């Protein structure tokens, strides 16, 4: 099998993770899938730029991130996502909070992720969502390890602050079936 076939096969197995990364960057499943589509097309048209044996996932993450940031700049705003007031609204009323369903706590987290600066969101997505090590994330995003560590720490602190109180713990940990 040629190297191109190897790459295509590995890219197939990477699709779920690439889709998740793009989903977390853009805040939208559909837009995320468009991002992955563009990234795969770009990567496959530039296979000569990929060194066989190096990490395909890092290369793909970087392409996805590049395409996303270009779109963001072109649009002039950070994401297409949801009402950022949602976080403040829940913080203000503990009784609403207690009746909140699991679905809403997920919206709160998505909103918190959408509010993150782009570079923190990408670092969070690779380390906390995809389980990459700091080094792998640093290689994928082309920044020093220390930078990744501080971005992830700041992002996770913001997400932690978006979570309020023990009641959310009870309703947020997947005990409600979807």
């Amino acid at each position, binding site marked *: 099998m040629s190297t*191109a076939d190897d790459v295509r096969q590995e890219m197939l197995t990477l699709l779920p993770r690439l889709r998740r990364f793009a989903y977390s960057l853009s805040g939208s499943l559909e837009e995320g899938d468009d991002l992955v589509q563009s990234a*795969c097309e770009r990567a496959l048209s530039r296979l000569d730029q990929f060194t066989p044996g190096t990490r395909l996932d890092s290369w793909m993450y970087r392409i996805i991130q590049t395409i996303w940031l270009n779109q963001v700049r072109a649009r002039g705003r950070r994401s297409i996502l949801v009402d950022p007031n949602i976080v403040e609204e829940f913080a203000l009323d503990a009784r609403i909070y207690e009746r909140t369903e699991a679905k809403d706590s997920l919206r709160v987290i998505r909103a918190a992720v959408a509010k993150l600066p782009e570079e923190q969101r990408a670092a969070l997505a690779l380390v906390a969502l995809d389980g990459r090590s700091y080094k792998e994330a640093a290689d994928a995003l082309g920044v020093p390890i220390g930078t990744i560590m501080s971005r992830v720490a700041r992002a996770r602190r913001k997400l932690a602050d978006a979570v309020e109180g023990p009641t959310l713990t009870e309703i947020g940990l997947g005990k409600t079936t979807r």
Partner: protein
Amino acid sequence: MTRPDDKILMDYADGVLSDGERAAVAAYLLGDAEARELVEKYRTSLSLLDEAFAEPMRTAPPRTLVDTVLNAGTVAVATAEPPAQRIGSGAGTTSSRFILPLAASILLLAGAAGWFMLGPSAELPAGGFGIAIGPVNPSSPLGRTLDTAPAGVPTDTTGPGAGPARLEVVITFRDRRARPCREFELLTTAKERQPVAAGIACRSDGRWVIEGAVRLAESPASDRPDYVPSGLTEKDALDGILSALGAQPALSAADEKTLINRRWD
């Protein structure tokens, strides 16, 4: 002890501190309710984050995406690598006519990561055990099996709502990047020990990461509307994952034992 900084509390919440560090932080937390609450928020927000963006890990990718990967691009890389040596199947290199159904098999993820992956706090999906791509919690049954069990020696375990199950490592090998990898099976039901799912996890920066997984048991397609029956055996799907990883021949029992004793470093 002074209040540990946020990073330490975060690491404590994630369970990645050394035994000594963990004990010290635990002792400190007994006297600091605010820090305890922050630790809890770190845990909760991480679980929610995982759940909030889990959809792509639970559904097969859109057909258009798969088609793009298979057909887009016209530039062929000049050098052809020698085919990776295959383990187990003896069927030879996967030819391209199998790639589309292979994709459907490889990408068939059995739902949310289950109890065997994440530990007691995760919910099992109705109707089956889940195995998902991604890092394995080292204190979960799968994590412990991958860390300590030799190939062919099963671990019997029970999950809440899951009934008795058995985890077994099938084979240990290195991939093209020389990372230690292990193919494992999850078998369930007390009587028949039917294999339910199988996967391959590789060692990546000090942890196990599931690189690919397939559902093995016959299950009704009706509970997964996005399921595309491949017409191929799951063994072919596993072979596909092995090929994608560039799997080298299986390690000897002695080499495997050395890796286990060295905690896979």
